[in-house]
């Protein structure tokens, strides 16, 4: 078998080929099966050290990576912004080089600056996995979204995926756009014009500000969190108006085809971007995404961690 994976880092989906993305998804199949066993642990990364380096706060992504690493038998340490020397004025490069000097094999980085994982990936021998950088990419989130779509619908090519919400500031949206377009999906972005600028059309997707026109022909809707913490107030006139124009209300959910999947990367603002009952309804695959996220991250750590040490 020819080598189908040769990267030490996973920085984003823009740099991956369709073949590489599909290879990660195939590898995920094997690790998903591990999660159903009585003993959910494999020795793939035994003796390896993984550092969860989260310069920006996160609970679910960090937990998912941590659990994935445990299941691969790696040793794991967690460092957050407040516990790292970054608060003492140490540069990112120096902090990371210190971690490498302790023989860390894999560095999972969450950072508020776009490009921070590239910056470290170019300077470290250790494997760098991007767990979200600014508004740039969040590749494992997009991979788990792709995996979930493929699992539920049997394919990705030809499906119409609608991504709704704050696209401008969303790394989840960018990684999804890159991955979905490479795998042949049709992608429509929906949201207020301030958060979904027309410039996105140059990435090979459609842009709409009329959600009711788009929902009836969607195969998948992926609702993004309206991020109060990231966003300056003046991007839209208020949460009420957002919900009125772009929320997936019960009424709007009736426009969807019966087999349309409803996805959300979490955490959900119930009653804002999605109605509470709709979030828990039959079409929702939100919790499947979480389960698949674990398998996807095992696959990514296995593939990149294996390269970094050969």
């Amino acid at each position, binding site marked *: 078998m020819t080598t189908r994976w040769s990267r030490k880092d996973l920085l984003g989906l*823009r740099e991956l080929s369709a073949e590489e993305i599909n290879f990660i998804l195939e590898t995920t199949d094997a690790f998903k099966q591990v999660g159903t066993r009585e003993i959910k642990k494999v020795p793939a990364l035994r003796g390896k050290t993984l550092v969860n380096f989260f310069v920006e706060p996160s609970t679910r992504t960090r937990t998912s990576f941590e659990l994935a690493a445990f299941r691969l038998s790696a040793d794991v340490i967690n460092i957050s912004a407040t516990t790292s020397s970054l608060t003492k004025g140490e*540069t*990112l*490069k120096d902090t990371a080089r210190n971690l490498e000097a302790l023989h860390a094999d894999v560095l999972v980085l969450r*950072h*508020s*600056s*776009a*490009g*921070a994982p*590239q*910056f470290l990936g170019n300077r470290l021998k250790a494997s760098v996995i991007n767990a979200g*950088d*600014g*508004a*740039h*990419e969040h590749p494992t989130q997009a991979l788990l979204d792709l995996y979930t779509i493929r699992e539920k619908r049997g394919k990705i090519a030809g499906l119409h995926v609608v991504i709704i919400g704050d696209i401008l*500031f969303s*790394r989840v949206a*960018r990684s999804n756009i890159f991955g979905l377009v490479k795998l042949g999906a049709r992608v429509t972005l929906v949201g207020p014009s301030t958060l979904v*600028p027309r*410039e*996105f059309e*140059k*990435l090979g997707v459609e842009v709409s500000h009329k959600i009711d026109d788009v929902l009836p022909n969607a195969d998948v809707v992926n609702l993004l969190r309206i991020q109060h913490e990231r966003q*300056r107030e003046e991007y839209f006139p208020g949460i009420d108006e957002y919900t009125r124009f772009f929320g997936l209300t019960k009424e709007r959910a009736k426009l969807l085809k019966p087999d349309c999947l409803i996805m959300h990367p979490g955490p959900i603002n119930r009653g804002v971007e999605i109605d509470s009952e709709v979030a828990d309804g039959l079409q929702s695959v939100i919790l499947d995404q979480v389960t698949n996220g674990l398998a996807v991250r095992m696959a990514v750590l296995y593939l990149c961690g294996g390269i970094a040490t050969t």
Partner: protein
Amino acid sequence: MSATIIRNGRVIDPANRRDKLADLVIVDGRIAEKSAIRDPQSAIEEIDASRLIVAPGLIDMHVHLREPGFGHKETIESGARAAAAGGFTTIVCMPNTSPVADTPSTIAWIKERAAASACVNVLPTGAISKNISGEELGPIGSLAQAGVVAITDDGHCIQNNELMRRAVEYARMVGVPILDHCQDYNLVGNGVVHEGYWSTLLGLPGWPAAGEEAIVMRNILLADLCGHQIHCQHVTTAGSVRLLREARSRGVKITAEVCTHHVQLTDEAIQNFDTNYKMNPPLRAQADVDALLEGIADGTLSILASDHAPHADFEKEVEFDAAPFGIIGLETELGLFLDLLVHKHRKIDIARLIEMYTVEPARLLKINAGTLSIGAPADVTLIDPDLKWTVKIDRLESASRNSPFDGWKMKGRAVRTIVGGKTVWNL
């Protein structure tokens, strides 16, 4: 008496509409007639300039020398050496130092330091507002008396249009031009790269063209209202060129400069998050670059400059958002502009290029430089317009290394720099 004869060069002196093969004579530090060499037997330095251009010493009116306060990035001495190596005999340094150059004593310190350590002429500017904070006027009259050639809050931009109006009116009385870094803070926000395709793709905060154009327009209105010279520094957008072209055609006292990197590179260069492509204003799109080239060709943009902005490697080698803006440029700008404007696009001829580096800034700043007239200070740059060379970052004279042009192959450069009749740099 000391005398030098530069023989057989192509003497290009735009101030005197002169372009011909000739010898240039220097006596006691000034340009002289041949007859001024009274004693032909005394030692005369001979410089062979065949196949070279003999130009008035070039002026870069937009340079950061970092002293006082940031000597780890650059010193007046190292920055002046970099200027000499780039063919510049006069450089104009920006006031965003520590302390800010907003008092006569700081200006005096800079001038003393330059006199003691700089191998080229260093002309200081003073701040428009106290501490460059944009809130109250600095002592503009006292700064002028202390010898600044212009006032500017470069790196910052006065947002209060009324305050800026008073600054322009007051500067007119004092007789110093205003240089302005055009940036509307509300429109630009935390932008770090041109707002367009690449900012959308990379998720980096965008710096929209309108953020520059709004202030260019403001400056046109105030230059018109107050009848005084405002110079827009490092303009980058097609819209700015359009606004400036229209205003200049009406005779408004507005000028603008263009920096090397803004016509050599586009925002596509940021895709690997290399902070040597992070500058303020940012690299723009190809359509903007095309408009800048047209603006250079038709005279809308009349001055060339580097915005030489040294930063230490540990400062630049950080996350893209966190890195300081700017690159060094003194030692690469002449080669890059020659290559692009004269050799590649043929937008202007070499005489006009020299004029944009000499007569134009000298006229704006009202300084006695940029000419080879008899009696003028003997600041001379010898240029080999066809010399092929490669930028080697470790060989540069600047104390910093933050340039995206390492390894670039160039055509044309300064080969000898003469200040006050004395050779200060020789290839």
